[in-house]
Structures are given as C-alpha cells and as structure tokens.
C-alpha cells in the first residue's frame, strides 16, 4: 500500500512539474514569441484569435504571474485547452480528437508487434546461443536501431511507393474517401499504414531483442533451468515456461512504458508520410507557430507517459514481489 501511495505521489508531483513547465516555458523565453507572433498575425487574425494567444502567453494583461497560473490551471482542469490558430476557430481539443485515433492505430499496433516479434527473437536467440539466428539478427538490429527512422521511411517511400508503386505513401487514407466505420475505409487506412509501420518496426525491434536475449541468457544459467533439464522436460517447455517466463519481466515493464510513448507517436515518420496523426499535428503546429496546439499536444503526450509509467510500476510490483521492498 505504501508502495502504491509513493508511486501515486510521484505521479502527482511530476504531473504538476510538467504542467508548470508548460506554463512557464513560453513566459520565460527571451523575446516573447507571442509578441512576435501577434505582430505577424496582426490584421490577419480576428480579435478572438488574438485574445486566445494573449491568454495562452500572458501578454498584454495586467494580471500577475500567479493569477495567470491559477487561471491556467483552472482552464486545464475544466478541459479548456484554448483555440487552435492553424485550424481557427476550432478548439484544440477537437483538432486533437481528429488525429489521435490514427496515431493510436499506427503506433499502437506497431509497438505491440515490435514487442512480440522482438521478444520471440530474443528468446530463441538466447536459447540457441551462437546459432545462425543469434549471430545475425541481434547485431543487425543493433545497427538498424542507430539509423534515423524517418530516413528508413524515406527509403521505403522511394522503393515501394515511388518506384514499385505497391503502397500509398501519403496521408492516412485516400482523401477522396470520407472517414467512416466501413470496411473499404478501414482497409484503405490499413494499406496506408503499411509503409510507416514497417519503418517503425525495423528501427524499434532491436531494443526488445537485446533486452530479452541478455536477460534470458542470465536466466538460462539459473539452477532451476538446470533442474528442468535434468527432469527431462521438453525443450519448448523449458524455454518458455521456465526461462522466458522469468526473463520477460524487464521487457514487460519496458512494454508498459512504451505504451505511454504511443501517444507521442513517431513524430518524424508521421511527418515523412504526411500521416495525419498527433506527431504530424505537432510538426504542423510548429510550422505555423500554433502555440496553443503545441502546448496541448505536449501536455497530452506527457500525461500519457506518466499514466503508463504508473501502470508499469504497479504491474511490475504485482509480478515481481522483490521490487516492492526495493528503494
């Protein structure tokens, strides 16, 4: 119970730190970006939008910093994230809602796939230590994990999109279709997500392989594994039920963490493929200096990670009693 409380305490403190960081960052920056922005948009934006920027950045107000902070917190608590400048006058929350499903679908599915495939390769690699699989895959994926993943995306676009014309490489679905829950539309979305998904898979699978393989190797030297061999249990049973089951913990908690990072998505892959998820939205907000949207996305991304970490801690504590007493 103390354990859960301490974790919850950290959660609340970190959340507060992130919210405050989000509030302070634009106000601390030299040469207030909002003033430059307002000068730029002056006469082009209507007064409501200008007001939105003023509120978001605390310019042209007589309010003290503390008062601004209080009203900022109040807005957040009531879910008022401000108004997007890029998609004016759509509220930020509506803009985000339109993009979040695509990111969750693309990055979510690829994260799960990378975890499953990587863990399996790690298990088999450690089991057949020094075999062909173990000699080739781990080093190869160590190298691919050092390649910029957006560049892998660009290569895939070049080969499978432009040259071979096998897959579409622009946008999350055919713009001639309108989003709906029908089979043709869903199929279209899946086809559009194949190339970006492969780009993410190639560059993210290495971490899972390495962690699993290295923990598994340590586990295989344990006495209970020798005992299982001595009992004459089948290889498969020893591999999965004895060794992998005990070695998977680090990978599992890593997986729980990466669930949080799904929301922050693969910013650059989405950008390269013009895939209209949250990451692409973040780049768009950056290009058009849409600070309210940027702030909201950052906050959303951070909260997702925080929740995932809280869950990861709890899951680990349930699965592994040793961690409960650890500092």
């Amino acid at each position, binding site marked *: 119970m103390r354990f859960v409380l301490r974790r919850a305490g950290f959660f609340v403190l970190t959340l507060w730190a992130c919210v405050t960081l989000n509030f302070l960052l634009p106000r601390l920056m030299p040469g207030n970006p909002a003033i430059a922005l307002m000068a730029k948009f002056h006469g082009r934006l209507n007064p409501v939008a200008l007001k939105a920027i003023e509120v978001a950045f605390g310019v042209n107000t007589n309010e003290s910093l503390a008062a601004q902070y209080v009203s900022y917190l109040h807005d957040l608590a009531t879910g008022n994230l401000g108004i997007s400048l890029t998609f004016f006058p759509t509220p930020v929350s509506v803009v985000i809602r339109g993009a979040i499903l695509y990111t969750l679908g693309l990055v979510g599915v690829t994260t799960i796939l990378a975890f499953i495939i990587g863990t399996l390769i790690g298990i088999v690699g450690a089991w057949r230590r020094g075999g062909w699989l173990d000699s080739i895959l781990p080093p190869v994926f160590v190298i691919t994990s050092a390649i910029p993943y957006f560049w892998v995306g660009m290569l895939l676009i070049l080969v499978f999109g432009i040259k071979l014309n096998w897959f579409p490489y622009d946008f999350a679905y055919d713009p001639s279709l309108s989003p709906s829950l029908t089979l043709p539309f869903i199929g279209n979305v899946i086809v559009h997500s194949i190339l970006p998904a492969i780009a993410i898979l190639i560059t993210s699978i290495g971490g899972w392989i390495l962690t699993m393989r290295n923990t598994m190797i340590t586990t295989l030297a344990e006495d209970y594994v020798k005992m299982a061999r001595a009992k004459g249990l*089948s290889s498969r049973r020893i591999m999965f039920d004895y060794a992998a089951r005990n070695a998977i913990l680090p990978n599992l908690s890593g997986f729980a963490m990466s669930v949080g990072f799904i929301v922050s998505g693969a910013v650059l892959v989405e950008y390269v493929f013009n895939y209209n998820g949250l990451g692409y939205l973040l780049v768009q907000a950056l290009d058009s200096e849409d600070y309210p949207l940027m702030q909201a996305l950052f906050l959303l991304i951070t909260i997702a990670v925080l929740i995932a*970490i809280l869950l990861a801690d709890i899951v680990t504590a349930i699965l592994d009693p040793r961690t409960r007493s650890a500092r």
Partner: protein
Amino acid sequence: MAILTGAAIGEPAPGITRQGGQPHPGQALGRIWRAIRSNKKAFAGASLLAIFTLLAIFPWAIARDNPQAEIYGRSLGPSAAHWFGTTYYGQDLFAQAVWGTRETLLIAVVSGALSTFLSVIMGLAAGYLGGLWDAVLNFITDVLLVIPTFPLLIIIVAYLPGIGIPGLITVLVITGYSYGARQLRAQTLSIRGRDYLEAARVRGERSSYVILVEIIPSMTSLIVATFLGTAVYNVLAAAGLQFLGLGNPDSVSWGTMLYWAQNNEALQTDQYLWAIIPGALIGLLGAAFALINYAFDEISNPALARVPLTRTRQLNPVLRRLSANRAN
C-alpha cells in the same frame, strides 16, 4: 530505484564495476583499448569512428569544393566531377557530405560528453550524499526522464527560433542526461557501503574527494557506456531536429542536407542521392557508436560474452541429447 525497476532501465550488470581496492583510471582505459582490439564489433565501430573523425578534422583534404557554393549545374547526376551529383541549388553533394561530418560529429561528441558529465554529477551526488540531496536531485532527474524527449526538444527549440549549435547542444544535454544519471545513481547506491569507501570516510575525507577519487574511477566502464549511448541518441535527435528545419538550416550538416532534400521533394524528383547519402552517413555514425556500445556490453558483462556453443552442450552432452530427443 524509484520509478522503474530492474533491467528495464538498464541497471548495470553485476560484473560492470571492479571490486574493491583503489582502481586506477589509466588502467581501466587500457583495458578498454585492449577490449576494443580483441572484439570484432568494437573494432569495426572504432574504425568507422576514426574515419569520421578524420573527415571532420580534415574535410578540405578530401573535398575541395565549398559545400555552400551554388556554382554548378542544378540537380546533376553522379559523375567524375561530382561523385554524388549536385543539389537543386547547384551545390556539390560530395562536398556537403564530407563537410557535414564536422557539425554532426561535433554535436554528437560534445553533447554526449557534456550530458555524461551532468549524469555523473547528478547521479553520483544523489546516490552518495543521500537524504534530501538524493530526494531533490532524483526528483529532477525522474521528471526529465519521463517527459518524452523529442517532443520536449521540439517545443523548446520552437520557442527559441534561430538557436545555434551551442543552443542545440545545451537543450540536448538538459533533456538527455537523465537516463545515465539514473544508472549511475543505482550503481553508486550499490557500492556505497563498500569497505574502501567506509575507510575513506573514516579517514575524514570530504565527500567531493570520495566521489572524485574513489567512486568515479571504479565506474569508468559505466561512464563510457553512458557516453556512447547518449552519443547515439544525440546523433539521431539532432538529425531529427535539423530535418524539421529547427536549429540553423543554413549550416552544413547531414541533418540540414536531409531538410533541404525533403523540402525540394528530392525523392519525387529523381534526386535520390540528396536524400539517401546524408541518412546513410547518420546511420553509419550511429552504428559506429552502437557497435562499440554493444561490444562494450559483452566486455563489461562476462555473462554475455560470445560463446561458440551453448553451455549445456559443452558441459553435459549426454543430458543435452536426452532432452533434445524428448523435445518436439
């Protein structure tokens, strides 16, 4: 460990520190050098890194063209005069690739070194001093650890338009030190009660002395590993930021090459090399660091060292055959 537990966060392997005694840093570096020579992966990585370092220091010896000069034909294909062809603006791509090494490597090494330095200070101070120090320092590190780095980088750099290389490096250091700090803290906690540290305390040495002279030398391996890991990450993060046009798009680096290639739709307009070459170079540089790091893991953790056959096969062929027959 506070938030994350165990190997998920890469808690150092048990074999990574040398036990007890008064380890000497020169000795440890010598050990690292021997290890690099004896390990194929480490050697490949170190050789690559050496080549890139030469390119970064002496780019004019290899590419005489001014990488920025827009003096050639536009979008030429590869030829004897222009090995990689030219950009849409008429710049020589080979010269850009060679001269771009300097900035990319500089960012990787300097930000990697500085953030490792910060990791050491924060991690060791938190782990060794304990108490309130630990609570405060560790909280700062934990917060920075959980905030997704790349979006944070984007936001900070977006608020600071036109920050140069020093700015970019500062941001990378602040956002990137936390992971290493956490590992070093965990390691410090685990050796804190060792006798030789106790002895130093009893002798009446100051904390700063104990940390600098007693603890840091015993962690050389882990500190080097932290540097390598951070360097890989920073190569990729800096390239990503430059690819988005953040930082200074007029500088010559592999990331900005990619930015201009993307902006001119190089892939769609048959100027493949413009996009392929800088990315491949970034990948090679990252791979160089990653290979050294991977080999380093094997070296510092004997349990992972490559063995040609599985242990059971060596130790007990009969037992193994028995279980193999039963399997499948």
